């Protein structure tokens, strides 16, 4: 008779040790204690620590970040979702990665321009300090060059739209790819406002790119219809564009009209602008129901009327028994009139019993 004994594998042993550790730290997890001393360790939720803040222009900075061990190298042109605690509240935004992918220290950078009333951008530009811990997601986005780089490239950017492109350019120029023919058309109010202005001009001086600067304060906005006057082989170039919606829409129209729409890749700064009217369509994502909500009816009432199994408690904003995630949308606190908005991934939880729709809402229930 033969017997087979199952020898514990390294993984099995690791799992058992982890289980034992969990039983010793219950109701918390071992990670909750490790976070006290090693928040960037492997296996922890992905975080990063600010290591430096470099000014770029009068209203933009580059933030250097040491990412946690779990960080996977990004592809130039991608963005990262960053969660920052500002005035005690965690705010999530996405920023383009501007760093070289092969830095020996493995640090990454994002470049941020302060926008009027922008909570996160103004914080990063004016208040962020070295040592601050951030929450991160893995890099994402498809605003990247294909593995085999086309021979002729065109980049059309405006303002901070240069940020994903500088990431691409830096890695192109320093990397193994030879850039034979890249044109950069960049729009900024004045020449001083050009983020990475010095670096772009240096690349141009070395013949690595052709740079066309458009100073919109004196020259006016870029007229897409006349773009061929500065770039004559426009339609032959694979184009990457990043900037305000108006510019991107105009580019898309022109490229489509000329039948080369597939050669245009665009990156938009922000998702659709949230509407903050009264009432709106409420989608209950898990149950699949939708309902038209009025601005004076709570989401709890709306959900219940629509037959959704809503958790509920005191129905007066006290107990938090009704709290559910607002995946995206805008709600108004019926007690105070305060408006709260959330975008996908914010992880915002709201009390449905005191919240009314102030626009379209997706509720995760």
């Amino acid at each position, binding site marked *: 008779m033969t017997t087979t004994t199952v020898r514990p594998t390294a993984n099995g042993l690791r799992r058992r040790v982890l289980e034992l550790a969990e039983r010793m730290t219950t109701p*918390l997890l071992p990670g909750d204690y490790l976070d006290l001393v090693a928040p960037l360790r492997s296996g922890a939720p992905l975080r990063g620590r600010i290591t430096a803040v470099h000014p770029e222009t009068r209203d933009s900075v580059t933030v250097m970040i040491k990412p946690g061990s779990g960080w996977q190298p990004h592809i130039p042109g991608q963005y990262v979702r960053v969660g920052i605690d500002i005035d005690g509240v965690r705010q999530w935004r996405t920023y383009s990665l501007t760093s070289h992918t092969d830095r020996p220290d493995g640090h990454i950078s994002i470049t941020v321009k302060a926008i009027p009333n922008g909570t996160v951008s103004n914080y990063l530009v004016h208040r962020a300090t070295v040592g601050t811990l951030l929450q991160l997601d893995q890099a994402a986005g498809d605003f990247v060059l294909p593995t085999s780089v086309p021979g002729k490239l065109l980049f059309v950017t405006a303002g901070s739209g240069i940020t994903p492109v500088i990431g691409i350019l830096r890695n192109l120029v320093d990397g193994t790819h030879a850039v034979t023919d890249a044109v950069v058309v960049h729009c900024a109010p004045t020449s001083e406002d050009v983020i990475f202005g010095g670096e772009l001009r240096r690349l141009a001086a070395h013949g690595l790119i052709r740079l066309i600067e458009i100073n919109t304060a004196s020259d006016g906005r870029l007229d897409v219809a006349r773009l061929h006057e500065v770039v004559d082989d426009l339609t032959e170039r694979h184009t990457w564009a990043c900037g305000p919606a108006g510019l991107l829409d105009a580019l898309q129209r022109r490229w489509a009209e000329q039948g080369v729409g597939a050669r245009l890749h665009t990156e938009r700064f922000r998702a659709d602008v949230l509407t903050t009217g009264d009432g709106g369509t409420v989608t209950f994502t898990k149950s699949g129901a939708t309902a038209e909500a009025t601005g004076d009816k709570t989401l709890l009432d709306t959900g219940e009327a629509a037959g959704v199994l809503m958790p509920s408690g005191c129905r007066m904003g006290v*107990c938090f028994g009704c709290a559910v995630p607002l995946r995206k949308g805008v709600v108004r606190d019926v007690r105070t009139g305060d408006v709260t908005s959330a975008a996908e991934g914010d992880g915002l939880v709201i009390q449905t019993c005191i919240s009314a729709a102030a626009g379209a809402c997706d509720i995760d229930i």
Partner: protein
Amino acid sequence: MTALQRKLDNPVAHLTEADIENLGAELDAIRAHVIASRGERDAAYIRNVIDGQRKLELASRAILLFSLFPPAWIAGTAGLAVSKIIDNMEIGHNVMHGQWDWMRDPKIHSTTWEWDSASPAAMWKHSHNELHHTYTNVLGKDRDLGYGIMRVDEDQQWTVFNLVQPLTNFINACVFQYGIAAYDLQIGRYLKGKADKVEFRRQGKEVAAKVGRQALKDYVLHPLLSGPSAVTTFTANLTANLIRNLWTHSVIMCGHFPDGVQTYEKTSIDGETRGQWYLRQMLGSANISGGQWLHFMTGNLSFQIEHHLFPDLPSNRYQEIAPKVAELFERYGLTYTSGPLPQQVASAWMKVVRLSLPNALATRRLPRLGLRRASSPATRQLGKAA
């Protein structure tokens, strides 16, 4: 204590409906001011508390590895007891109230938090946040009035079981975390056949699983890890849990049982306005006076009045708004019930002892033994006040 509506000297009789609505508006303003100023300072506070509590727990458990040496046993047990108290009071209770949900940190959130106590978070949140905080001190609705095992109000019916309630209360104090779990499970309702059996069994399994996990940690794994100090680490964990139970039980008794706290009839909350709800919370709770450490170790439940008015405001703010709230009490001619811990604990215990007897005996016999009620016997007379 007698339901407020039955008192001749009704403490709110002098307030008009308009007064009560104005009072509500003033309290709303206090709340709005705190919410508008919530920020980095508050977030740093709770993160520091959580950070400190976890480090204290780790350090205490490390010291207990050598608990065979009496000084290590004493230091480790004291540290562990304090850490468990902070976990339950200043952190667990308050996080589960949603006081820190505004930070949008999934790790410090009412929907994800779990505490070092026998009762699972979800069940506790239902019985505490939804039932107790909504129906505070309403006879027949708020089971916190005596936890269903004691009589703490003259208007609660006396039964022969109440004779032993001083003993029941003492035993409950010693095993308080299990008392809370049993209470949240509503065992009493189940025994009376009023509970959904399937749901009760499901919840019962949850409680059993959590009790098991907690016991395995405190009474098996950490002692075993201590090797030669296993037995002393076991007794250290047992003692730390006992200290935590006695402390939390005392603090919680002080919230609603001391003399001066009002109770309400079931019908009195029908159609209650926000102002009236505030008023009920104001008179239905009692504070504990003392220093910074007392407030911290009670999880700021020493500001029970402020907590009941604004259960979801960050606990570090209760102390700041207390003077404004006390000023409102004075201006509206209401009594802000407060006293030092020993006095409030004694007052609550006195009530448990006194009401172990039927009303007639309690009022006639006990004063001779020195067990006297603070309020005047006139309030005992029946008849609805305006």
